[in-house]
């Protein structure tokens, strides 16, 4: 085995030991054996821990190796990340996240369906929401394990650690700490992972800069004078990153759904108070944006150093994910393991949060609501841990399949979660509009169908959108969802007024008028 592979293994083992120590230590043990202190943190985390928890938990494998792969494939179009790294915290977390925290603390919610069904009514609606979200999140979990597993396998050498082996290593790590300590463990590990991935991506950028003689202007000019100068402007070499794409995908395909993923709800519920979340909303954009700033250097350096590994004519968004691992394979420094472990941190920090959130939904919204009501809390936690293990196994099995299919399904995740936005807004932002459970359900279904037609239709040759109308599919879903929801709501039963009054009164109490 070459020395570089050995060093990579040693560094990754050090990372694994750190994560297991942080994720299972005494600080991860809650005082009570209760669902609301396992899947979330009942007393709540303070600013610093939750800040890094959210910062790391929000970044997925899309950060490493996805972002540099995007620059490699589509070029400067990734600058649109400002529309989610800055807009999501300042608008969605600050305004909506703080209201989710307010209601979650007040009524002790554990899952996203708790919040929605408390307003619109329990029963089948709750289980529909829970399984809808679960279905949406499985591809996301697969993506978060697949990208880093490729990085790990390539970094060590596929002959020593094949991709399936890397998948199993990551799955085992997550399984140990998440079943040991639930939300507490995953948040503490995410703190460590957030710091590690931040250091790793900046180190990687300086290393890449050193590979191209350390001069950014030269790097820019080499791209400008090369065959792929289209990387410097929209619509990029593939011609797909158009202005319509820019105006819809970053906002409707990411920014608006990013914070209302189930893991977001669990983080919001785990805040000590509403003020903590507002402060995180105001400041977490610094971390989120700063993590992506150096990705352009890595992506563009890879274009210069490895121009021929992908055919520009046939590139798609996800095939570029292989570019950074390929660069590491060719040029890795002796400390390349630090970067690879950074990739593991990016994927694991959101994989564990998704596993926890989905296990919470199956346990609380299905098992505790329909199968075994009023069972001892220990039983629910035991059931939740079994669900976590099953979800991790499903994630690994789906990740062994074709990566292109997983990538396609991530788009479906975004489209599905975005359709929940009107329901979340209806609960958290009181308006005079009549919005009912029937309206919400019909809107979600109509929005999802429209999304699927636009998203999958062109891929299977069923429809072709004319130039100038190629907006993101999530956008089409939402513009069908909202009017359908409003129209159907006019003819269906309104939520129980006492429930609505109770929730609005809780919001009024926290967000009173200041003048």
């Amino acid at each position, binding site marked *: 085995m070459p020395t570089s592979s050995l060093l990579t293994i040693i560094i990754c083992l050090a990372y694994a030991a750190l994560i297991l120590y942080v994720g299972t230590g005494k600080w991860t043990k809650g005082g009570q054996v209760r669902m609301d202190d396992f899947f979330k943190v009942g007393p709540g985390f303070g600013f610093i821990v939750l800040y890094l928890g959210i910062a790391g938990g929000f970044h997925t494998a899309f950060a490493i190796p996805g972002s540099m792969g995007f620059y490699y494939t589509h*070029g400067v179009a990734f600058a649109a990340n400002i*529309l989610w790294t800055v807009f999501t915290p*300042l608008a969605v977390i600050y305004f909506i996240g703080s209201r989710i925290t307010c209601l979650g603390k007040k009524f002790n919610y554990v899952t996203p369906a708790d919040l929605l069904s408390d307003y619109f009514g329990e029963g089948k609606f709750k289980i529909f929401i829970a399984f809808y979200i679960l279905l949406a999140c499985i591809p996301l979990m697969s993506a978060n394990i697949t990208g880093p597993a490729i990085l790990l396998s390539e970094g060590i050498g596929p002959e020593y650690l094949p991709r399936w082996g890397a998948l199993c290593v990551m799955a085992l790590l997550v399984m140990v700490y998440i079943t040991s300590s639930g939300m507490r463990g995953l948040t503490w590990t995410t703190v460590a992972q957030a710091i590690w991935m931040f250091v790793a991506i900046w180190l990687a950028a300086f290393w890449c800069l050193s590979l191209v003689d350390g001069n950014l202007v030269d790097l*820019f000019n080499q791209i400008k004078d090369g065959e792929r100068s289209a990387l410097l402007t929209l619509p990029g070499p593939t011609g797909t990153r158009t202005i319509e794409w820019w105006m819809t995908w970053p906002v409707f395909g990411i920014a608006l759904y990013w914070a209302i993923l189930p893991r977001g709800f669990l983080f919001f519920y785990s805040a000590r108070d509403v003020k903590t979340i507002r402060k995180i909303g105001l400041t977490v954009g610094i971390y989120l944006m700063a993590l992506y700033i150096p990705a352009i250097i890595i992506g563009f350096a890879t274009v210069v150093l490895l121009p021929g590994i992908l055919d520009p004519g046939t590139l798609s968004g996800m095939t570029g994910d292989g570019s950074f691992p390929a660069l590491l394979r060719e040029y890795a420094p002796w400390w390349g393991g630090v970067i690879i472990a950074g990739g593991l941190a990016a994927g694991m920090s959101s994989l564990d949060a998704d596993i926890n959130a989905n296990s919470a939904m199956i346990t609380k919204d299905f098992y505790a609501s329909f199968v075994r009501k009023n069972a001892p809390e220990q039983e629910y936690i035991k059931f939740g841990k079994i669900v976590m293990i099953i979800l991790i196994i499903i994630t690994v099995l789906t990740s062994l399949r074709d990566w292109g299919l997983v990538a396609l399904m991530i788009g479906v995740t975004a489209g599905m979660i975005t359709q929940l936005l009107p329901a979340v807004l209806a609960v958290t932002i009181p308006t005079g509009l009549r919005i009912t459970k029937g309206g919400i359900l019909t809107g979600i279904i109509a929005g999802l169908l429209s999304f699927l037609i636009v998203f999958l239709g062109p891929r299977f040759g069923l429809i072709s959108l004319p130039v100038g109308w190629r907006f993101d599919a999530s956008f089409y879903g939402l513009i069908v969802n909202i009017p359908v929801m409003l129209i159907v709501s006019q003819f269906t039963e309104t939520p129980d007024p006492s429930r609505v009054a109770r929730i609005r009164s809780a919001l009024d109490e926290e967000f*009173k008028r200041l003048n």
Partner: protein
Amino acid sequence: MQKFHNHLVPQTINQWLYAIWLIVCLVSVWFIAPIYFNEPEQIFGFPLLYAWCTGIGIVWLIGCMFFGFRIEKEREEFKKNNQI
């Protein structure tokens, strides 16, 4: 129709400034950037579109943090004065 308070409507000067800053910067990246800054020019070695968006991103964060923390201070004072 049930009585409601929409707390998203700005009530104080700082809340208005936060909202205006949020929207102006959003428009600068969302609409202005791809139309007016989509050129193969470089700023310190970075493509123009990237430099514009990142620059606005930094200004966006600083401005909203400034107004946001002032709103927090107002909120604290309001709670103190009204003994909430």
